[in-house]
């Protein structure tokens, strides 16, 4: 197949490294699966959440030691610069950045923050149990042995009015609320993120989605 007619500047630069792309799509899938497909509290939900935790941890490590565009120092959180970028975007004259643009950077941190909250509260809700333990507990309960439940309920949400029980119940309840709110926040942010990518791709005449899939951004214009 013929190559597109000689691009004057040679090929496009390599943009997103494999870890960035992998973590991006893995987290997107984790969010979608746990928001839509799995039942909250199910072993599968917990499994997927822990996988998300691992992927996010890897991305954060990569933010310290990774490639230039992956490092936090390449996209520091700058709210004012983010607003300026949105203004430039509205006027159709956005600048190019070597990593996430300032608005994108704020989105990245917001999404990571919301994910961290969801994961942390999820851990509180499951008592920090690993998915293996959660699966075990649930299969034991399904087999008809409810004694584990009774032990669990010390930290559970029944309203036994002992002082410690009340406090822990309150914490569990708070965690549950936060889990729900932060999860919805992720979905809202993800929607904004997709809209932003769409607008930016249009204005900059760049296929940003392809760049995140293959690591390259082809200039469609020039």
């Amino acid at each position, binding site marked *: *197949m*013929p*190559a597109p*007619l*000689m691009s004057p500047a*040679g*090929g496009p630069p*390599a943009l997103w*490294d*494999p*870890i960035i792309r*992998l973590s991006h799509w893995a987290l997107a899938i984790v969010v979608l699966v746990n928001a839509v497909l799995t039942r909250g509290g199910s072993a599968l939900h917990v499994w997927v959440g*822990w*996988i998300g*935790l*691992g*992927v996010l*941890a*890897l991305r954060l*490590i*990569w933010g310290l*030691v*990774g*490639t230039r565009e992956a490092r936090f120092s390449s996209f520091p959180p700058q709210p004012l610069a983010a607003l300026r970028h949105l203004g430039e975007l509205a006027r159709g004259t956005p600048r190019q950045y070597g990593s996430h643009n300032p608005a994108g950077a704020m989105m990245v941190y917001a999404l990571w923050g919301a994910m961290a909250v969801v994961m942390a509260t999820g851990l509180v809700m499951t008592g*920090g*149990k*690993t*998915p*293996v*333990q959660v699966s075990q507990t649930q299969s034991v309960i399904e087999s008809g042995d409810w004694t584990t439940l009774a032990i669990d309920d010390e930290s559970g949400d029944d309203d036994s009015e002992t002082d410690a029980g009340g406090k822990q119940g309150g914490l569990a309840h708070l965690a549950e609320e936060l889990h729900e709110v932060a999860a919805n926040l992720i979905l809202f942010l993800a929607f904004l993120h997709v809209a932003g990518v769409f607008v930016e791709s249009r204005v900059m005449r760049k296929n940003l989605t392809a760049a995140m899939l293959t690591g390259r951004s082809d200039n469609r214009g020039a």
Partner: protein
Amino acid sequence: MPVRAPITAERRQGIILVAFLVIQTLAAVFYIGDVFGDLAGHGVSAHLVVEALVTLALVLAIGFGAIRLRRTLDVLRAQEAALEVARGALGEVIDGQFGAWGLTPAERDVGMLALKGLDVAEIAEVRGAAQGTVRAQLTRIYSKAGVSGRAQFAAFFVEDLMGAGLHAKPAE
């Protein structure tokens, strides 16, 4: 035909390192979870100490793996940049030779497309010209270059590249 970056040892290593890193991180997260679970459940024990050491080793391995991957990716990018330069250099050589043969701008375009491996029909389509026109242009190009046909025309430039490289395949 687009020149693909070859699958070099570095590229393979990069893919393997990414896979390892992902598996290691997932394993580490589950291990850390297990350590904390044990700590809450049973307190400090010999078993826990060993487990914590294993986890620590895993975390360190992840750090080193990540740094190693960064280096590999940097090497890959340097190679790709070098390849771009080589491509650009070849383009300049071809351009200069076309000039020396006195090709017209239209003939230069057709010649370049022919070198890229497009056949007459494809060149005609790309340029929005009749196939007969393209055929005539190619004939003129071959006669100006003093070559017998397309194969010799392409070989003219490949020969330059191979001049020093006949002795051996480069070791990956």
